[in-house]
């Protein structure tokens, strides 16, 4: 008797749960490293989406960036992947080539035109769009007005060659290093300068143009325009050097200025901001776009796409940028929002940087070599970086360094 009763109750509960499950399709979406800072934004977005889409139930899950890939692979293998996953651009290429994420053209349709052309290009693999472009960032130049004045540099550089000559002048007049550009991604620098890296399956970066471009850095290094340990300087170290007045310019993402504001008030107050000039590659430097992909095997790809479009819509992207204060939308309209341009004339460097960077977004491309092109990426990039470092630090000539890397790359590319 008792057992029967329990079974009935159990069945009733189970039936109810099943009914619930049928009533709403759950759409789980994963983001990286955004909780708990942006809980408010996501809770609001989720309830907004759920209210507007009866029958769909968005659910936000945040993870560390290093967890996302293993968990995603496990969930694809188990046949239960989430609806959307937050990826960066290199991952999109990698997963698209493996066939582990879905092309989105059929779901995007005319909505494609909402996004910036550069952003769409970033996530296009073999002619198909594989992700919904989301938030992005670009480098700006933050400069110490006092050092500029002392060096007699009147305004921020308009192009890369001017940046180089200003930098030399700063070193000559003040004795200080001018800047510490991130030298850890030479491939990115080549793209920025509009120079090809791999063409028709062959490495081509030992042309006279490439040599001349790298030589510029070697000259800067020799003259002490860049700090001696520039190859070890990344985001954190560059900010620290700028905040302590050891370099005249900080050439990095606008969020670095937030750190200057809190850590080095005195330097912050004499900081001016300018866009990072584009070179022959016509690309804004320092972009690193985030996006959403739909994994293969997800239950309802159309519904997932609906959520993806919602999360990356103009309105949501502006709201998210307002929440972060330092990231930028990847849609055409959103960057023109008055929020970004309001600070253009402000005396505050973060406000200025926001206006400056938003204007550069049209040319923002993530500058990495598409995954899959290099058969042994870790070893090949290391070879390139080591040789370039040797050349720039003056241990060998630029020409012979680049020749050596090209030969090594071609040997590996030939075996592919």
């Amino acid at each position: 008797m008792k057992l029967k009763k329990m079974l009935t109750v159990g069945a009733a509960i189970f039936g109810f749960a099943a009914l619930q499950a049928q009533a709403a399709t759950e759409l789980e979406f994963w983001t990286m490293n955004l909780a708990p800072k942006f809980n408010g934004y996501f809770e609001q977005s989720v309830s907004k989406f759920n209210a507007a889409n009866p029958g769909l139930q968005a659910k936000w899950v945040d993870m560390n960036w290093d967890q996302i890939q293993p968990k995603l692979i496990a969930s694809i293998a188990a046949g239960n992947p989430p609806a959307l996953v937050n990826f960066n651009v290199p991952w999109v290429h990698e997963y698209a080539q493996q066939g582990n994420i879905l092309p989105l053209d059929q779901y995007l349709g005319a909505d494609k035109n909402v996004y910036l052309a550069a952003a769409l290009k970033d996530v296009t693999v073999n002619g198909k769009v594989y992700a919904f472009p989301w938030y992005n960032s670009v480098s700006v130049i933050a400069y110490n007005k006092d050092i500029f004045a002392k060096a007699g540099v009147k305004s921020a550089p308009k192009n890369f060659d001017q940046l180089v000559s200003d930098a030399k002048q700063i070193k000559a007049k003040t004795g200080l290093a001018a800047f510490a550009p991130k030298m850890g991604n030479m491939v990115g620098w080549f793209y920025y300068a509009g120079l090809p890296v791999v063409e028709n399956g062959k490495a081509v970066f030992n042309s006279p143009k490439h040599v001349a471009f790298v030589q510029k850095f070697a000259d800067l290094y020799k003259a002490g325009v860049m700090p001696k340990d520039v190859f070890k300087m990344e985001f954190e170290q560059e900010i620290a050097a700028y905040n302590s007045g050891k370099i005249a310019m900080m050439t990095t993402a606008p969020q670095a200025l937030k750190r200057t504001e809190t850590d080095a008030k005195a330097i912050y107050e004499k900081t001016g901001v300018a866009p990072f000039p584009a070179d022959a590659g016509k690309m804004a430097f320092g972009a690193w776009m985030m996006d959403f992909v739909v994994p293969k095997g997800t239950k309802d790809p159309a519904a997932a796409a609906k959520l993806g479009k919602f999360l990356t819509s103009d309105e949501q992207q502006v709201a998210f940028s307002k929440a972060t204060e330092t990231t930028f939308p990847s849609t055409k309209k959103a960057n023109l929002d008055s929020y970004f341009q309001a600070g253009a004339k402000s005396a505050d460097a973060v406000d200025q940087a926001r206006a400056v960077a938003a204007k550069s977004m049209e040319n923002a491309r993530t500058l990495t070599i598409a995954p899959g092109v290099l058969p042994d990426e870790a070893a090949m990039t290391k070879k390139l970086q080591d040789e370039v470092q040797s050349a720039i630090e003056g241990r060998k000539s630029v020409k012979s360094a680049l020749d050596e890397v090209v030969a090594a790359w071609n040997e590996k590319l030939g075996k592919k």
Partner: protein
Amino acid sequence: MKNSSSYTAIAYLFLAPALILMGIFTFWPVGYNTYLAFNNYSIADGVATWNNFEHFKYIAQEELFHNALKNSLLYLLVVPVIQVAALVVAKLVNNKLPGMTFFRAAYYIPVITAISIAGVVWANVYKYDGMLTWLLQSLHLVPQGPDGQIDWLGNPDIAIYMVMIFTFWKGIGYYMVLYLAGLQAIPAEVEEAAILDGANAWDRFWKITVPMVKPTILLCTLLSTIAAIKSFQEIIVLTKGQADTYTALYYVYDQAFRNYNFGRGAAAGLVVTFFCMMLAAVQFRFFSEKK
């Protein structure tokens, strides 16, 4: 009365918890790694396909791996230095003098400091305008101004030795404590007798201390040899493998987690394991008690 076989059974029963854990977390991974070394492993679907010795052939002609292995073997230079120094320091702090506890603790602090934190500190010591340069310039050992600013961790000729100094600093306290335990096991009478016989401190150190702590020397050399071959963490926090400091284990890491080539990573890992075992065998020959 229990017979010997039931004693053996009980012994194994006591060993079982440790053996099970070791089996799961030590032997199984080593075995699986060996299996992976002969396979192409695709992480997306978890499929391993047999490919014989392909990975070994590849790394046998891979210049980067040769270089990495060379650096790992070069790293062994730190072993004799750290052992002799740790033994001498242990001998010194084994005296009953006021303040000795302080010195013992001071040498041990680096051991318990997290490597990432110690790395940040040492990066500032080794910066071209950091503490080391400042010290040498204050002592007028190198020229003043930018000419004397050596990029300790950026120059391929010296960077790896700088990292070794860091390893030395980080490890000396650990081996010192082990030697201290070994020293305290030496009966005081032996030393007293030697003093009566007129042996000086140098003789006593080499003729009494060293032979009597030989088992500890074997243990410590073994541990530090394995640690040297496995050098990876100190490299990643100080140089990221730049400036000719790329080691074999860094290669393993790069192949597995940047190239997603787990098979090749496993093969390289197996080669490293092989070197560890070979060196261990050599050391057992030299330092273990002859029977």
